[in-house]
C-alpha cells in the first residue's frame, strides 16, 4: 500500500491502444517507467492520448497489446472487476474539474474510495480511527475545515475548494499512486500556486508516487522529472 517501497511504481511495455480495429492507434508507447515515490510531470497536448493513457493506467481501458504493471502487479493480466478493485486499492485520481459527487458533503466525498476498497478503509481507520475522521484530517491538511464546510453538498464549494477536496480524496487510505489530470487548469494563478504546494506536500507526506498530466508548459517546477507525451507516444503525432 505504502509508496515508500523502493522500486518501480509504473511500468509500461509496448502498449498499444486503438478505439476500433482499423483505426490508428491512440497510444503506442514502447516503454515508460516511473519509480516509486517519484513526482513525474507528463506534458501533452489535448487530444494527444492523455485521457486514454489515464484510462489504461486506471485499468478502465485495456490495451490491445503490451503490458502495464503498477506497484508490481500486471493489471493487463487482470479481469475487469479485478482491475476495478485494484484501482480502488492503489490509485487516487484528481481530475480537471467536476471531481466531486455534487450531492454528497465534502467529508462523504473524501470517504468515497473507502467504500470501494477495504484496504484503504482499513488504512484510513488505522491512521485516524475511522475513514470519516481521516477525511477530516486530510481536509484540514488541505486547509479546509470540515466543520466550517458543513454537511451541505460539495457542489456549493468554490472550484479551488472542490479541487482540494478532490486531492484529499485521492490521498485517503494512502494509495501508492496519485494521478492528477490537469487539476489546476480551472484555477486562477494564485490559487494554482497554493494548490500545487499543498499537493506536493501531502503527496510527499503520504509517501505516494505522483503522476501529473497537463497540456500547459511552464508548470514543471517542483517535479523530479518531465516527459513530453509526444516523445514517448509514437502515435501522438499521427
Amino acid at each position: 500500500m505504502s509508496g515508500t517501497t523502493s522500486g518501480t511504481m509504473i511500468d509500461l511495455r509496448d502498449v498499444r491502444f486503438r478505439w476500433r480495429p482499423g483505426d490508428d492507434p491512440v497510444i503506442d508507447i514502447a516503454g515508460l517507467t516511473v519509480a516509486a515515490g517519484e513526482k513525474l510531470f507528463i506534458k501533452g497536448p489535448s487530444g494527444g492520448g492523455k485521457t486514454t493513457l489515464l484510462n489504461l493506467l486506471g485499468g478502465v481501458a485495456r490495451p490491445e497489446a503490451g503490458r502495464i504493471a503498477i506497484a508490481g502487479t500486471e493489471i493487463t493480466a487482470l479481469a475487469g472487476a479485478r482491475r476495478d478493485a485494484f484501482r480502488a486499492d492503489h490509485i487516487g485520481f484528481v481530475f480537471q474539474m467536476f471531481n466531486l459527487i455534487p450531492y454528497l458533503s465534502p467529508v462523504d466525498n473524501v470517504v468515497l474510495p473507502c467504500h470501494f476498497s477495504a484496504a484503504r478503509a482499513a488504512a484510513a481507520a488505522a491512521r485516524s480511527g475511522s475513514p470519516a475522521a481521516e477525511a477530516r484530517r486530510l481536509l484540514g491538511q488541505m486547509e479546509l475545515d470540515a466543520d466550517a464546510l458543513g454537511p451541505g453538498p460539495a457542489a456549493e464549494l468554490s472550484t479551488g475548494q472542490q479541487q482540494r477536496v478532490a486531492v484529499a480524496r485521492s490521498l485517503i487510505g494512502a494509495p501508492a499512486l496519485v494521478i492528477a489530470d490537469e487539476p489546476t487548469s480551472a484555477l486562477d494563478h494564485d490559487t494554482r500556486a497554493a494548490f500545487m504546494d499543498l499537493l506536493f506536500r501531502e503527496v510527499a507526506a503520504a509517501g505516494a508516487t505522483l503522476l501529473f498530466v497537463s497540456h500547459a508548459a511552464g508548470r514543471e517546477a517542483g517535479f523530479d522529472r518531465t516527459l513530453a507525451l509526444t516523445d514517448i507516444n509514437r502515435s501522438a503525432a499521427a
Partner: protein
Amino acid sequence: MSTLKAILALTPRSLVNRRVTAGLTVFAIAVSVMLVLGVEKVRHEAKASFANTISGTDLIVGARSGSIQLLLYAVFRIGNATNNISWKSYQAIAERRDVAWAVPISLGDSHRGFRVMGTTADYFRHYRYGTKRPLKFRAGQPFDDVFDAVVGADVARALGYELGDPIVVAHGLGAAGFSSHADKPFKVAGVLAKTGTPVDRTVHVTLAGIEAIHVDWRGGSRVPGLTITAEQVRRMDLTPKSITAFMVGLKSRLSAFAVQRAINGHSREPLLAILPGVALQELWDLIGTAETALAAVSMFVVAGGLLGMLTMLLSGLNERRREMAILRAVGARPAHVFVMLISESALISLAGSALGVAMLYAGLLIGQPIIDARFGLYLPIAPPSAADLTILALVFSAGLVAGALPAYRAYRHSVADGMVVRT
C-alpha cells in the same frame, strides 16, 4: 461498509438531490397506484353489492319467461312482465310448509318516471340487500292505510318528497301519461334510507291500493260512466286477482332447489322460480365487460406513471455521466452503476406505491360516508387484499423492468466513458 451498501446508500441522496423531478415522478406513480387500487376496490365492492342487490330472498317467482327477464323486472324494475300470475297460485305456494314467507309484488304503473310497485308491509320486513342489511326508514313508517306510499331515497330526493305529500300514480309507464289515477291519490307515509339498489328508485304502495285505483278500469282505460270514489273503494274487497311476481323466503335454504322444481312444475299455470344469486351472476356476466374495460384503463394509467419514471431517469442520465465517471475513478465497477440506477427505479416505484396506498386509504376515510350516502355503495376499509398485493407487486416489478433500460444505458456509458467524460 460493503460496496453494495455504499452504492445503495447513494441512491436516496441522489434522488433527494433531484427532489422536484423525483418527487413528481413518485407522485405520478402514487396517483396511478391509487387509481388502480381504487378502481379495483370499487369494482370488487360494486360486484359484491350487485350480487347482493337482493339478499335473504331465496326464490323469485313470476310468469314463465327467461330468468334474466324476471330478475330485470322484479328486482331492477326494468322492462315488463309478459304475463301476470294468479293470486291463487301465489296463495298455493305461500302456504307450502317449507315456505317461511312470500311477499307479492305488482308492477305496471309509474309516478313521474319512477316505477310504482304494489306490495305488502311484509316487504319492508323481509327485503334484504348487501350483507343482509334490512331496509331502513329515514322518516315515517311502513304502510298503515290503503293509500299509503313509501318512497325510495332517490325518489324522495329527486321529487323533494316529505311525509304527507300526495302522490298521483299514472297508469302505465309513460312519464307524463294522459291517463292518471288522480281521483285516488296516495300519501307519502315513509321515506327509505339510501340502499344503492333499485329500491331507491321505487315508489312502494299497497297491493290493495293498486287494486283500488284500478277498480273502475278495464283493459287499460277508464270505464265510461263508472266512478268509484276513494271512500267507496275502502269498503270493497281489495284482494287482487293477479300479481306480477312474488319473493319467497324458505325455512331452510337447503330446500331451495326442491321448491324451485316444484314451482316450475306447478300444474295450474306456467310459473318460473329463480334463485336470485344465480340470475344476478348471469346478469353480471353480461354487463361485466365494462368492469374489464375499467381495469384495463387503470392499468394504462399505471403504465403512464412508469413511463414518466423512465423519462425522468433517461433524461437525467446524460447530465449524470460525470457522477458515474467519478464513481468509476474511485473504484466502482460498471455493474455498480447499473445497480445504482436500478435501485433508483426500485425506490421510486416503492415510494410511489406506498404513497399511493396511503392516498387510497386517506381517500377512503374521507370518501366512505359520502359514497355510501350518495351511491349506496359501502366501501369497507380493510387491509390490502391478496389481489391488491399482487397489483402492488406487479407495479414494483414493472418499475424494475422499466428501470433496467436507463440502468443498462448508464452501464454502457460508464464502460465507454471510463473515468473521464469526453464532451
